[in-house]
């Protein structure tokens, strides 16, 4: 008897739009999975809370958005609803986690042990509601949970050396090494794993200039919109492919 398709939920904020586009454009295929989306963008995403043993929107307006994105009328996400849930984006931002720490680590007196990095990662995931939700969902044991954080900002879209931007605040980060990135990903991964959640890390080959995403993965129209946060369907396909490998 052939095995049934795995029920997969891609849960997230505006970043899940790139996954939808990747599927629509045919750059991403998910054989063996039956996929649903669950989430909301922007302020509405903040209205998703853990209430009565399920992740659910807490306002009617948010429920409408969630139902629309899901397309199948689902407005709650509870343990056991899916075989797997991939948290995608969800405001766990690598662009906020990496630069301050790597800037610190570049100093002569800035070496940080794995345990210290792990403590820093614990703070970041602890402050991220979606990461807490992911650990809660995984804790039930019926659902395998994965987390692909919001990727690093796209290089070349904005002047990153302008006031308030990454290189102005953290000028040493463009010299970040692969080893440093590996250590930060490992810290995040270990912390999430302790909660039963598997990290899907941004592929190394997509990273340029220390802590940025290669311009070729910019969202369409990024130059005009100045959107360095969101990525192309091709990037989403890479991330979901990484998830599929991890899920196997």
């Amino acid at each position, binding site marked *: 008897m052939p095995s049934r398709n795995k029920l997969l939920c891609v849960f997230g904020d505006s970043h899940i739009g790139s996954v939808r586009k990747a599927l629509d454009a045919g750059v991403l295929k998910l054989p063996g999975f039956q996929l649903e989306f669950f989430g909301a963008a922007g302020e509405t995403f903040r209205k998703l809370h853990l209430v009565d043993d399920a992740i659910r929107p807490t306002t009617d307006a948010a429920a409408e958005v969630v139902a629309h994105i899901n397309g199948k009328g689902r407005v709650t996400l509870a343990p056991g609803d899916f075989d797997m849930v991939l948290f995608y984006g969800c405001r766990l931002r690598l662009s906020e986690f990496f630069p*301050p*720490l790597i800037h610190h680590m570049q*100093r002569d*007196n800035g070496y940080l042990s794995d*345990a210290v990095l792990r*403590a*820093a990662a614990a*703070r970041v995931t602890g402050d991220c509601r979606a990461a807490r939700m992911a650990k809660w969902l995984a804790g039930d044991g019926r659902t395998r949970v994965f987390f692909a954080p919001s990727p690093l900002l796209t290089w070349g879209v904005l002047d990153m050396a302008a006031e308030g931007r990454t290189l102005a605040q953290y000028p040493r980060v463009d010299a970040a090494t692969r080893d440093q990135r590996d250590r930060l990903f490992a810290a995040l991964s270990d912390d999430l794993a302790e909660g039963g959640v598997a990290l899907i890390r941004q592929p190394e080959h997509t990273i340029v200039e220390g802590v940025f995403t290669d311009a070729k993965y910019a969202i369409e129209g990024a130059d005009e919109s100045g959107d360095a946060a969101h990525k192309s369907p091709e990037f989403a396909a890479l991330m979901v492919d990484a998830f599929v490998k991890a899920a196997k």
Partner: protein
Amino acid sequence: MSNPYETLGPQAYWRPAVAEAGAFGLQGLWQPRFRILPKHKIVTAGSCFAQHIGRALSARGYHWYDAEPAPPFLREDAARQFNYGIFSFRTGNIYTPKMLLQWLQLAFDAGDVPDEIWEEDGRFYDPLRPVIEPGGFASEAELRAARAATLAAIRDAVQQADVFVFTLGLTESWENGETGLQYALCPGTVKGAQFDPDRHVFRNGGFRSLHKELQAALRLMRQHNKGLRVLLTVSPVPLTATASGNHVLTATTYSKSVLRAVAGQMVEDMKTVDYFPSYEIITHPIFRGMFYAPNMRSVEKAGVDTVMGHFFADQARAFGAPKTRQRKKVPPAAPAAEGEVTCEEELLGAFAK
């Protein structure tokens, strides 16, 4: 017939200066040699009590210099757990002059400090600061990289500081009998190394050796910062335990007396060195032990407040009150919060019968 005492001020006489003044009327206990202003970069290191001094200076708007700050995202409790913000660099407590000298020699590559790493259960421990990371380091490479960061912080602190506050804590220590490396704590009392009676030797430093080691340490710092001024204090915190064979009370008296004498001699030797009598303010019979917690060892906040009250009052008396510092947008570094002084020597208490 005249005599030299006739022209002395009231502070030279016990009756007016102490007996009549009472514990809270004492004045002029310290005649500071140099002015310490809020703008000066102040580095603190040494025994547990130095933590109080750094914190009190910071609370008054003085520039306590943190040369090895905690990284972003680390919560305050986690930062403390990893010994960030306790002293100006992440050495943990430095109880003896030789420990200070060893750290400085390593930082400035100015002497042969024996190399030794402890390993237990697959984790690695730095004998110079075995409890700096809860659970030790993941590898020897990690230990060495972390130590290199601290040595860089020490270099920075010494070179940048206007004032280096060092609190002398103990005369008793444990060393590697073969190499002479002095440990921060007795092997076997903390994780990392088993105690080996053939290799680990007890040392109770005397005046000559401690003076020589402290002198070498201060000279080394001066080589790298000609303008550096040093403020010595002696920790009023008694020994947790003694390995001298004597009663811990008399061993404490010996230890503190020798350290006090060394500090006094250093002031005589070097014009850039001063001694601040926090030890006397806490321990003197005039205060009837009132600043100690019921265990007669830990110093209560009131004691620290009184000590620092004398510090600021005597600075103001000698040099005038400093102008109030303009609050900057980014406040200067502050040592870890009140009430949680990190005293590794406390670990010895766990071995008390």
